């Protein structure tokens, strides 16, 4: 099994100059596969279709999280409505300001174990899949890798039962 066999083909993507407000809406309404609505992350492509970053829900959380909160233990001293206030301010930021620029990706022909290796070592749940011409053709989700693993496990059990 290779990355391209399990990936979900890419339908939506983001542009670097899109605002977070629009981007959040795209994430909310994007289709993943056939049935599910809403994705937890999308690649950011430039005009030539080259991937320059990845915006995930985590990046949106970071956009409302003030930098000073990460410097000290101030969680106890926040107030009701703070996240909503910060969200209003963060809505106008650009995708390019908040996206993860160093994206861990795999090739279409990468083996499944290589994909698992990247997921575990870099603690990511989604891997953009890159074609030979450099474009993003799909996304490999942790969930789909899990399905492949369970399938293999069940087959093994049936074999053992014989």
């Amino acid at each position, binding site marked *: 099994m290779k990355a391209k066999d399990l990936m979900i083909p890419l339908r939506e993507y983001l542009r670097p100059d899109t605002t977070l407000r629009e981007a959040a809406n795209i994430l909310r309404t994007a289709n993943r596969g056939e049935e599910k609505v809403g994705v937890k992350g999308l690649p950011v492509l430039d005009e030539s279709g080259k991937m320059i970053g990845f915006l995930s829900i985590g990046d949106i959380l970071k956009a409302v999280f*003030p*930098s*000073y*909160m990460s*410097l*000290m*233990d*101030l969680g*106890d*001293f*926040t*107030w009701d409505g*703070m996240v909503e*206030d910060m969200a209003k301010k963060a809505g106008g930021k650009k995708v390019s300001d908040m996206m993860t620029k160093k994206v861990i990706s795999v090739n279409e022909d990468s083996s499944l174990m290589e994909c698992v290796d990247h997921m575990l070592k870099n603690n990511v749940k989604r891997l953009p899949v890159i074609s030979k011409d450099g474009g993003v053709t799909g996304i490999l989700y942790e969930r789909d890798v899990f399905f492949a693993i369970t399938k293999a496990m069940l087959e093994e059990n049936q074999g053992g039962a014989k």
Partner: protein
Amino acid sequence: MTHEAAQPFIMDTAFWTATIIFLMAYAVIVSEKIHKTIVAIFCASLMLVLKILHQHEAFHVEEFGVDWNVIFLLISMMVIINLMRPTGVFEYIAIKSAKWGRGEPFRIMAIFAIVTAVLSALLDNVTTVLLITPVTLLIADALEVDPIPYLISCVLASNIGGTATLIGDPPNIMIASKAQLNFMDFIYHLSPIVIIIMVFYVFAIKLIWGKKLVTRDELKQRIMSMNENEAIKDPVMLKKSLVVLGLVLTGFVFHGALHFQPATVALFGAGLLLLLSKTHEPHHILAEVEWPTIFFFIGLFIIVGGVVKVGLIKWMSVQVLDITQGNLFATSMVIMWFSAFASAIVDNIPYVATMNPLIVDMAGQLWPDLSGVQLLHHPDLMPIWWSLALGACLGGNGSAIGASANVIVVGMSEKAGKKISFMKFMAYGMPLMIMTVIISTVYVWLRYYVLKI
């Protein structure tokens, strides 16, 4: 009184080589093209490779090399504070201060300035602003006011407060070590004027920002409903830390009488608190020491050692005495004001590293028969040391790059999306710096040249 150099020196190849390395190092540090620590380490190594200094001189000779008293005092204080930070005591103090301010924007600004000044005097100003800036940004968000006036008023207060004690600001640590002055000398000579300056300072910030800061009553409630007790994460470690910090501060008070160097006191505190913390991973605590700052000091000591050895510093001290014609009041005034403006432009650490040996050389020319403590503590020389300390510490307020604390606050503020431009900082920092140096001028003149106490 003699103005000639005691020993004539030769402007030979070594002289010019060392001078060029020194000037090059300063120029690159000011330009900020390369990180200052890298410049300091590289140029220090050049002094050794080009045989301006022997390694033995750089590492083991006090006159030409690294001042380990300064280095170990800094490292030890950093270790103590790194161990204290996770207890939550600094968050506690900051939130408590905001509540003392009852959510009133200016009251909070004034209390934060005073708390910052006191903490800067007792810890050091760089650590203090690292701890106070995040809380300041949080409070400003809670009150929906512009955080920039709060940040600027805090960092200026930290440089003023740090001036008050031996450990408050790196220039004082360096001056104390070179001039063999103890903690109580600083308390006796600098703390009184710093308290007076703080009174003027609070009035000044009231004039500048007092009326501009407004908030709404429901926002004040956000502050008042914060519970500072929740900040304390580790009460047991907090008690241990406070006991050790108390011991260290007591040790500083008596270090002169007990004949301990300040670094000995601080190192004992760091060792004791590490032991009491029962940590099995000192790696963490030690890794958090600001090694770039420490190596910046080490590099500078060696670079300055090189130009001391070849005689550049002696030549400079002759020029200073020429300008002031040996008039010591004029000398101390020139040093204070020159230090203030120089520290606003250059980092005050390399500046003081250069001035220290210059003043010692100058003293050697003025009183060639004296040596050791008798020379360093000559009654006519003392006001010059205090003028250097006041000028260099307070001068740090003159610009955004004048002191390490300023650089840190400007950086943190920019990260939080509130950029403080160089000119904006200067618009407040420079006039307030000039005000504090004028007050210091009157103080030095009155105390040492009129009242002579």
